[in-house]
């Protein structure tokens, strides 16, 4: 038991990374990234726990009762906000990429590539888009 939380954290990061490396769908990939992030939650809260400690809220218990580490919890709170913002941004990027590339597959939706079809084939339509939006 004494190492289980840390092992779980390592496992979560590893499996998330595996998911990112093998994902064929950007939305799925964003989910995997979330798993990687949950590894940090588990690690931090695991490190801040103490057997028998109460939650660091001295409402029902008087101050001085042994409690768990509030700093780790504050760090994880910030981390959760980071997670939400990253997820939102990545999903937006995914939606927009799908709109333009017509696919969610990283293999089909590559950045600028030598001799690749991405970009060149659709270059004309994109330019006209931009002209519409600037006019």
């Amino acid at each position, binding site marked *: 038991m004494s190492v289980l939380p840390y092992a779980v*954290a390592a496992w979560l*990061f590893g499996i998330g*990374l595996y998911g*990112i*490396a*093998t*994902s064929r769908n*950007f939305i799925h*990939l964003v989910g995997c*990234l979330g798993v*990687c*992030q949950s*590894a*940090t939650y588990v*690690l*931090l809260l695991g*490190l*801040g726990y103490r057997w028998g400690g109460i939650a660091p809220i001295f409402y029902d218990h008087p101050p001085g009762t042994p409690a768990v580490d509030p*700093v*780790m919890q504050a*760090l994880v709170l*910030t*981390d959760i906000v*980071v997670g939400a*913002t*990253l997820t939102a*941004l*990545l999903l937006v*990027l*995914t939606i*927009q*990429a799908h709109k*333009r*590339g017509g696919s969610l597959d*990283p*293999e089909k*939706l*590559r*950045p*600028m*590539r*030598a*001799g*690749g079809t*991405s*970009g*060149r084939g*659709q*270059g004309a339509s*994109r*330019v006209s888009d*931009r002209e519409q939006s*600037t006019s």
Partner: protein
Amino acid sequence: MTAFPAALLPLPVAIPLVICAAMLATAHLLPARLPDILATLSALTVAVLCGVIAVRAADGPLVYWFGGWEPRDGLHLGIGFSVDEASGWVAAFIGLLYALTFVFAWGFFDRTHGHFHILMLLFLAAMVGFCFTRDMFNLFVWFEVMSVAAFALTAYHLAESGLAGAINFTVVNSLAGFLMLGGIGLIYAQTGTLDFEGIAAAVARGGRDPVVAGAFCLVAGALMIKGAIVPFQFWLADAHAVAPSPVSVIFSGAMVSLGLFGLAKVSAVVFGASDQVQHALPALLIGLGCFTALLGGWMALLQRHLKRMLAFSTISHAGIMLTGLGALSVDGTGGMLVYVVGHGLVKGALFMVAGILLATQASIDEIALRGLGRGIWPAGIAMALAGLLLCGLPLGLLDQGTRLIQGALAQQGHGIALVAGVIGAALTGAAVLRAAGRIFLGLGPDPGDEAGAPSEDEREKANRPLWLMLGPCCALLALDMGVPAGLIEHALPRAASAFMHRPVVDAVSEGPGWLPWASVAAALAGAGYGLLRNHLPALLVLPVRATQSAPTRALEALHSGLIGDYAAWLAVGVAMIAAVLAMA
């Protein structure tokens, strides 16, 4: 109550934050030009404030405790800023770079209710906070604010390749954030504090500890991802190449080198007392640095998309900075700090030239632009000059930084790093000079291997006058060349020692004077070869072509643009760091 100079410390972070919150709250009421004006002014204010702070910090670091939570009984309760002279000047440089970028981007983004400026100001505040903080988790917070602002800015154009590049950038840098947070959790659990000095003291007490090494591995990995060090460099070419040019100026000029700045601070201050880490650092940093410098330079030479070329050149220069860091001496780190500023100025100017070409000639492709730059020859002069500075023309800040790094490397007997740095700089200089010659002189009708490199049509808003874009570009170059060398020679030993928390050294050594010239000569030769290939005897051209093509294709294939590959390389990189640490 905090005395006067230290009481300034929160302001360079708070002012941009307040301005951007106010701009967002009134987004729909603001007249069109107001965001430009406000943003430029606040960036200038930040630069001036940081300059004042840096001057005042010359006698010793200024310390500020937020919320008045000063340490009690040796325990740090709140968050502190601690600014030494070097950090202050780096922050001042960043503020100035932003101010000039805002001028460069004047009117670039009319239609967005100042959203561009909001993101840029947040980016600025985060960078200054990153330079100033002395708290591990606060460092992470600014690291993430920087990342999030950068993610949004990258995809501003909404072109398809921009989006895929932005997704790769976001995923890789998010993973960097998670690694860093994991490392922070480990070090906090082991040392019981988040303050740099507190951790350093606890690490010094603890002796050899696998947890400390593990924490360093994760944090260093994260900062190296930000700093685009091989094998973490893949995201950079994708992201820089597609970001709008004002954003690229900041990315290459400040963000990447700030990752290495953070690495320098963390390894010298926080983990300075861990023998295991300090023993592992030279091999790790110099090895990776050499490799990065060479790979980045080589890739830069093989590009035709100007921004992508400059992105690879940034990778190469990041490698050179890393070798300076790897010397683990005051000279090396001091040289790296000067290099950060000098490189930021020159690279920023180069990205502005790229932006000028995009705006006036509606293309960014070196080959398509051949000869089209004649009408805007002043930009050509700026580009050629910047190219020469980039490869080591003995003039200005960048050169001074280079010579300091070379001096430190020579002193410690790292001959290979010295050679790798010179070759890397020469290659990137050759790439820029070749592009300048082709675009502005119309040379080089017969492209070599670069013809096979990826490229794409792109355009940026064209209604800005040339002088408005060229002015900031020239200002950056003038600044690089105009800072008196004596001033830095005088201040650097003190500033760099304070930065590393080491006793003051008397003077810093510089490398041999002929090395920069060798680099310039090599760059000119490389550029000349690229441009005048068809005039050269076949005896010279054929063997080069035969040996060059295969590795080039292999390297280009390695930069596959697939996020899955990048994730795998990331794991490999972290494993490499861990392995070096384990052997130390």
